[in-house]
């Protein structure tokens, strides 16, 4: 069958499944809507958490990013998995025991303060919207490449689907669709990875394959990759580029940020028992690790495949996928030396980095760009990291159904994460802002209505982000993790492990973490991006890693300020004693 038909078929079937599940698992109470009635099996919850967590970025971009970064890419691998250890050991069981609906709920109750609840709501909404913007962009890319519909139409279809099952089903609907989405996305990720691993190394297990010898030779894949990278002017693939200090801080910021992400934390509110929360975090990490240990293998395969199939190839003989992705705007070629041959090496091919396409063809049939060539290097190829996973099956010449599967998988990854985020946004507005602060008198029915309306509004705003993508999406991802690490994680951790912390200490800590982290990131990312180099960074910490420093500031400020005010009331001590018991 033709690729487009197959893609429509796969995407159509998966969407029908999601909608069917949504109808089957409608939410009937706020308890259902916020935390799925606390009846989710820990393994199912582990799958749902994994789908919730693995976003369009994990599915589409991460392997490409690692292919580009080499060993430095391990900050994402360790950072986005290590956080689950912190969650399982330090937060999930206690927050589950607390037994309420949202993260601001815990912070507001534990610190007996509406102000603390409000600070938590603000951080949560900011973090979650930052994240949602990226998901909607992912949906748009997949639709435009594989279904050849306009990006905006794609985003609207995505919005409608999410609207349907999030507004109708709440957490209950989302949980069970996420289980289905996990199955789709992991299958879609593993199949091409296994094919490619077999093709390159004769080893069917990608995790082992990329440490294996290249098929038909006695050279290890990674050694070959190191050698190719050096020849093309890059650092060796298996060596670090970044300083150890920076890698340490980025990894830590991502780990503590992961543990502080509200949409991940609430997943552990949905299981029946405290011990299930721990178990569920373990299963979640198993399901996540399956993709996260495959990603670096995919990265290495993709990189070697990419270099092999384009390096020093005449443009007119370039493979079909190269031209397809050029058409979509994720690849560009600037023939700097006018020899008609593609030369790929280190450095930016174009001035201004991103290509600005003209509606003209060059002498070899390539898409012309108005950018001046960057003359400081001889690289002629602009390549967007995102295509490594999406184009991989094409590069490896896998059958059409595999390519169609990848499209369905990428959509599953984007939609599941978007739904989880929209739910925490709507819950924090209807439950924390309306019910607990502004209108405490509303009934459960009204609150449920508010929750559904808030979800609808949030989906609408997220859709706008997808249709009019703000140019700063990539920059603000550091923000989401930095803020989660420097505000929410410390407030939760200290709330559980340090009984004596009063509201003044907690609020001062959160605000100082928030201010320190955001001003550092804004300074380097928005106002002085030309200064954003290692020499100018404080202690050599990049903005991506500063959230960890912000977290340390939060801890210090909270522990100092708390000494100047009276101790928390007795009920709080009792409450903490209670959550510490299983």
């Amino acid at each position: 069958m033709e690729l487009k038909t197959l893609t429509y078929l796969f995407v159509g079937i998966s969407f029908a499944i999601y909608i069917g599940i949504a109808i089957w698992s409608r939410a009937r109470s706020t308890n259902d809507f916020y935390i799925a009635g606390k009846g989710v099996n820990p393994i199912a919850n582990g799958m749902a958490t994994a789908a919730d967590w693995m976003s369009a970025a994990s599915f589409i971009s991460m392997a490409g990013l690692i292919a580009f970064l080499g060993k430095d890419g391990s900050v994402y691998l360790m950072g986005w998995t290590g956080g689950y250890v912190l969650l399982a050991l330090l937060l999930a069981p206690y927050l589950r025991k607390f037994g309420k609906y949202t993260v601001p709920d815990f912070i507001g109750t534990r610190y007996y303060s509406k102000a603390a609840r409000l600070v938590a709501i603000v951080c949560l909404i900011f973090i979650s919207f930052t994240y949602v913007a990226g998901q909607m962009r992912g949906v748009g890319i997949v639709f435009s490449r594989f279904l050849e519909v306009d990006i905006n139409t794609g985003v609207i279809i995505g919005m409608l689907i999410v609207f349907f099952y999030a507004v109708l089903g709440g957490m209950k609907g989302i949980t069970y669709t996420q289980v289905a989405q996990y199955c789709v996305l992991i299958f879609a990720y593993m199949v091409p990875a296994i094919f490619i691993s077999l093709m390159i190394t004769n080893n069917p297990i990608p995790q082992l394959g990329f440490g294996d010898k290249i098929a038909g030779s006695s050279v290890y894949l990674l050694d070959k990759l190191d050698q190719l990278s050096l020849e093309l002017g890059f650092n060796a693939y298996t060596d670090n580029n970044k300083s150890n200090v920076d890698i340490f801080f980025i990894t830590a910021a991502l780990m503590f940020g992961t543990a502080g992400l509200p949409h991940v934390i609430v997943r552990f509110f949905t299981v029946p028992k405290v011990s299930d929360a721990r178990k569920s975090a373990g299963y979640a990490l198993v399901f996540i690790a399956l993709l996260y240990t495959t990603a670096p293998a995919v990265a290495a395969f993709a990189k070697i495949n990419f270099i092999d199939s384009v390096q020093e190839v005449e443009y007119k003989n370039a493979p079909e996928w190269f031209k397809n992705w050029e058409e979509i705007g994720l690849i560009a070629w600037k023939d700097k030396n006018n020899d008609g041959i593609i030369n790929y090496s280190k450095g930016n091919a174009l001035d201004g980095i991103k290509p600005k396409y003209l509606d003209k063809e060059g002498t070899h049939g390539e898409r012309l760009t108005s950018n001046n060539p960057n003359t400081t290097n001889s690289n002629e190829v602009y390549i967007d990291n995102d295509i490594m996973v999406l184009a991989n099956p094409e590069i490896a010449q896998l059958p059409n159904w595999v390519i169609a599967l990848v499209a369905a998988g990428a959509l599953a990854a984007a939609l599941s994460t978007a739904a989880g985020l929209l739910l925490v946004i709507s819950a924090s507005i209807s439950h924390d802002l309306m019910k607990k602060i502004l209108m405490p008198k509303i009934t459960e029915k009204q609150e449920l209505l508010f929750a559904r309306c808030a979800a609808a509004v949030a989906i609408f705003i997220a859709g706008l982000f997808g249709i009019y993508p703000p140019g700063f999406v990539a920059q603000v991802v550091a923000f989401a993790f930095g803020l989660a690490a420097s505000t929410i994680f410390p407030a939760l951790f200290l709330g559980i492990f340090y009984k004596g912390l009063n509201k003044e200490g907690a609020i001062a800590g959160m605000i100082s973490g928030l201010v320190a982290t955001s001003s550092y990131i804004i300074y380097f990312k928005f106002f002085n991006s030309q200064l954003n180099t290692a020499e100018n960074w404080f202690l050599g910490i990049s903005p991506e890693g500063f959230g960890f420093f912000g977290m340390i500031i939060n801890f210090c400020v909270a522990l100092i300020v708390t000494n100047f005010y009276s101790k928390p009331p007795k009920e709080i001590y009792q409450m903490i004693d209670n959550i510490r018991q299983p």
Partner: protein
Amino acid sequence: MKFSYWKSNLIILSSLLVIWFIVSFGFGIIWSDNLDNFRIGGFKLGFWFSQQGSIYFFVLIIFLYVYLMNKLEKKFFSDSKKLNSKDKN
């Protein structure tokens, strides 16, 4: 029985966090370059820890914690029925 439930929990989780730190920040970052002198198959050991090994250890750590805590809870709360039935708060 020397320690209370909470004390034992703190001991368990801090020892596991030490392992967590060593396999990721230690083997994956701080001593990664030194470990790169050793190889397993085509992997340099430091590289393997940073892109594979640390993640496997994370999974093991969580399940070890689940196991140890279940044992601990049995020891301290075995008489309470609450743990075995779904709590309805």
